């Protein structure tokens, strides 16, 4: 157990470093990325640009620049090229919105994803299964930016009704009611995609598991259909869902719901990433990527630990 954790932690750190290096490299290679020119603005003289390049260290070799950036990042001293604001402060400011979005949406998508999967599996081939399948495919196919704008227009901006506030984030400590009413639409819009996807995956898993010999054994013992479904079929069918959920949850928590955050103007970490990418602003992109990578590696570790709990065959003895 201890060796497992140590080994995985070392691996996780290496992954994070590799990620920062790749992001950095992309910015060196990509054309039009000269940060000095961007900082200097449209009407800068060539001398201005040279001065900026020198004072920000852009004339240094790339490995020196990379090293300086790493040092700044782990010291929490990364500063945006455009707004000159501290990246860490910006990320921390975005976290409440991102966390609210992730936790709420993930509860919805996990609950309804499992419900949809179980319902369509136990009625496989019948009308309800087909209806659910079509709905799930529609859910998977609807792009978040489109669904987000549509729901905003019809449900928040008076296209049909004005039940919900039109975007932006209100802190839960500020006003729990306002927080909730601001979050409902983003939660639903983000969850729709995952519900369809989880439902399909779970349906397939259940239909595979139902044909397992041990399910036949369970039946031959005279167990009730409900007990067979919950204790013998679902228990194993849910194992792959755990992986999906762990990684999806981490990705959204790490600012991966860029579209949802931007469409609903939540000012979360994802939207911060979107702004920085628009401005070609390397330090915040590095910061957000690192922040996202952190959640991904941590949650994939948690998923592995949870796996050992779920499946005794891979438990270290």
């Amino acid at each position, binding site marked *: 157990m201890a060796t497992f954790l140590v080994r995985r932690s070392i691996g996780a750190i290496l992954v994070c470093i590799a990620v920062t290096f790749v992001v950095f490299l992309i910015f060196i290679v990509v054309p039009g990325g000269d940060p000095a020119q961007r900082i200097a603005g449209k009407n800068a003289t060539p001398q201005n640009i040279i001065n900026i390049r020198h004072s920000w260290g852009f004339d240094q070799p790339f490995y020196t620049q990379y090293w300086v950036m790493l040092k700044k990042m782990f010291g929490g001293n990364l500063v945006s090229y455009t707004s000159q604001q501290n990246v860490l402060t910006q990320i921390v400011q975005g976290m409440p919105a991102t966390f609210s979005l992730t936790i709420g949406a993930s509860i919805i998508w996990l609950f309804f994803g499992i419900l949809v999967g179980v319902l369509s599996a136990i009625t496989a081939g019948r009308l309800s299964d087909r209806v659910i399948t079509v709905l799930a495919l529609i859910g998977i196919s609807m792009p978040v930016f489109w669904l987000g704008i549509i729901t905003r227009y019809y449900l928040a901006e008076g296209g049909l009704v004005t039940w919900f506030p039109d975007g932006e984030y209100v802190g839960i400590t500020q006003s729990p009611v306002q927080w909730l009413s601001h979050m409902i639409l983003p939660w639903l819009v983000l969850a729709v995609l995952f519900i369809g996807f989880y439902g399909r995956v779970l349906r397939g898993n259940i239909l595979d598991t139902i044909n*397992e*010999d*041990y399910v*036949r*054994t*369970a*039946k*031959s*013992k*005279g*167990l*009730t*259909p409900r*007990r067979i479904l919950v*204790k*013998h079929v679902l*228990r*194993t069918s849910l194992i792959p869902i755990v992986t999906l959920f762990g990684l999806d949850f981490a990705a959204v928590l790490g600012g991966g719901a860029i579209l949802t955050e931007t469409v609903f103007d939540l000012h979360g970490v994802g939207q911060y990433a979107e702004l920085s990418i628009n401005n070609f602003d390397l330090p915040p992109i590095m910061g957000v990527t690192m922040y996202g990578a952190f959640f991904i590696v941590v949650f994939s570790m948690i998923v592995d630990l949870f796996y050992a709990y*779920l*499946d*005794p*065959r891979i438990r270290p003895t």
Partner: protein
Amino acid sequence: MEPGGALMAERLLEVEDLSVHFATVDGTVKAVDGVSFELERGKVLGIVGESGSGKSVTAMTLMGLTRDVNAHFGGEVRYKGRNLLELSESEMQGYRGNEIGMIFQDPMTSLNPVYRIGEQIVEAIQAHDKVDKRVAKRRAVELLKQVGIPNPESRVDDFPHQFSGGMRQRAMIAMALSCNPDVLIADEPTTALDVTIQAQIIELIGRLKDDFNSAVIMITHDLGVVAEIADEIIVMYAGRVVEQAEKRDLFYDPQMPYTWGLLGSIPRLDRPKPERLHSIKGAPPSVINAPAGCKFRPRCPHAFEKCVDEPALENRVEKPGHLDRCWLDVEVKRALRDATISGDTQEAA
């Protein structure tokens, strides 16, 4: 042979003209077609046949495990006088495990990998007996001891993957017997096991049958498996019973050429070694478009004109109760048979 022969034989199971047909996109699969047999307490019935002969479907149907929207059943399966085919699904649950227990071919996959052996036995007990979990667990330990698991007190908390194949099959048997069923169905219980373990498992089933005062249906493709343990043997081919006899008669006076083929394909140490082990030429017929007449005709080296009509399953030899489906004259047949089983003749391909 049977202990307490003075007692009146108690008929536990009467299967009468059972048919199981499945509707598929390719047509109707007649998996089981007109099968009849009886089972008395204390007896072992062997059902023998190749893959696809309908022996497993017969067994699963007794347990109500073949129920499906596409399955159609005919005939009757009477357990202690009650027709199981007419029971509702929830009534059937009361019989599964409680009155009829079943063990399966592959003990590697028949136990749920994520639950402890003990948990799975306790679950079976609690499905029918409303007993405390601790009581049920004590019974699980006792059962594991009865099936010959060493250190049952600690092994009861093991997971299936910590058991060897033979031990898993023992655990399966313990689980199937946990509610003291009157009939135990063993569907190829030794096929996935090593030869040395096979003999132990068969011996165990025979002993437990007496300990639990039950009856056993042993399903196998290997006549060697039932040679020791069975009282009566049914040979199935393409969903039909083709021969039915007491064990001694089936082994010493088999009437169906198909049965000869099965007997001939067992390696024998008490006879001269043949060039090659005998095998039955060809493959079992499709049960969707079964050939008219005798189902074995296309593979039978002794088929003649009469075989285009299917012979009835009836008694043709001196011994009553020995039934077969073959048109050949009994004396002609006996002469042909001795040649076939000892492997001296090369029959036509």
